[in-house]
């Protein structure tokens, strides 16, 4: 009898473990360039399975050889990702869940307070809020902070005496993940030639990812929000809160 139960439980257990492992791999690579490669491998594997099922020997032989070579190629191409991945193993929850609405609202409050105070004091700042696309490559270019989002901390990071005030700040969930991050510069030719690097970086990141990027001009104190490669001018704190609510809460509602 126990043998019969085990013969039922064993495949379920195996599939469950495989599921968790595959899911973690997908989450790890999601939003990075490596994810595209992973998708390509997925298509090749489907072709491989079909060739085996249908008995297409030549295609099967070719794909088998291709896989043998590609393993070595993948190890070389993803050297950095693999190193970071192994170092981070066990540091994350298996299936992390979204933030509650009240938590998102509290974060929005902290962000808008800090941005408005920075704007009043004419302190330039660049803040990227991660949405669906992971900002891992940009996080790695900066200095890890890993702290709860607080208006005071954001202001102190962008104070002129702070060694972290150059570059962008990245927020992910309820955490300030990294500061002094390098963002890609927009090469949009329609942009005013006088536009600064900070604004180009904000626009550049919003072109390449779906993140919401806040930028405060050092010279005028103007606040702009860059989303989907476009700037939205923000006139006051209330409008900023509304914009952020639309972006961050909409994203959550869409998922549900």
């Amino acid at each position, binding site marked *: 009898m126990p043998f019969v139960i085990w013969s039922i439980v064993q*495949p379920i257990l*195996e*599939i*469950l473990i*495989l*599921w*968790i*492992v*595959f*899911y973690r*791999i*997908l*989450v790890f690579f*999601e939003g990075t360039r490596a994810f595209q490669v992973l998708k390509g491998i*997925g298509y090749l594997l489907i072709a491989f*399975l079909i060739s*085996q*099922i249908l008995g297409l020997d030549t295609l099967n032989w070719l794909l088998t050889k291709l896989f043998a070579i590609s393993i070595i190629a993948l190890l070389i191409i993803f050297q950095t990702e693999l190193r970071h991945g192994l170092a981070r193993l066990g540091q994350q929850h298996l*299936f*992390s*869940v*979204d933030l509650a609405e009240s938590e998102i609202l509290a974060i929005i409050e902290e962000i808008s307070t800090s941005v408005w105070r920075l704007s009043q004091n004419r302190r330039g700042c660049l803040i990227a809020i991660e949405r669906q696309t992971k900002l891992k490559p940009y996080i790695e270019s900066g200095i890890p902070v890993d702290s709860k989002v607080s208006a005071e901390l954001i202001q102190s990071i962008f104070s002129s005496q702070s060694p972290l005030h150059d570059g962008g700040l990245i927020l992910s969930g309820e955490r300030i993940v990294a500061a002094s991050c390098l963002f890609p510069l927009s090469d949009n030719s329609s942009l005013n030639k006088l536009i600064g690097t900070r604004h180009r970086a904000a626009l550049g990141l919003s072109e390449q990812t779906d993140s919401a990027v806040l930028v405060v001009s050092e010279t005028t104190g103007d606040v702009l929000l860059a989303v989907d490669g476009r700037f939205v001018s923000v006139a006051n704190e209330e409008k900023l809160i509304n914009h952020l609510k639309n972006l961050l809460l909409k994203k959550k509602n869409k*998922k*549900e």
Partner: protein
Amino acid sequence: MIKRWITHNFALKLIALFWAVVTWFYVNGELLK
């Protein structure tokens, strides 16, 4: 809570489940019977 857990990254969970099932069946020889 369960709904939130399922809907979070639902597509990735589904893809992962697909490959987990395919891998298990392939390794156990059930796929090419």
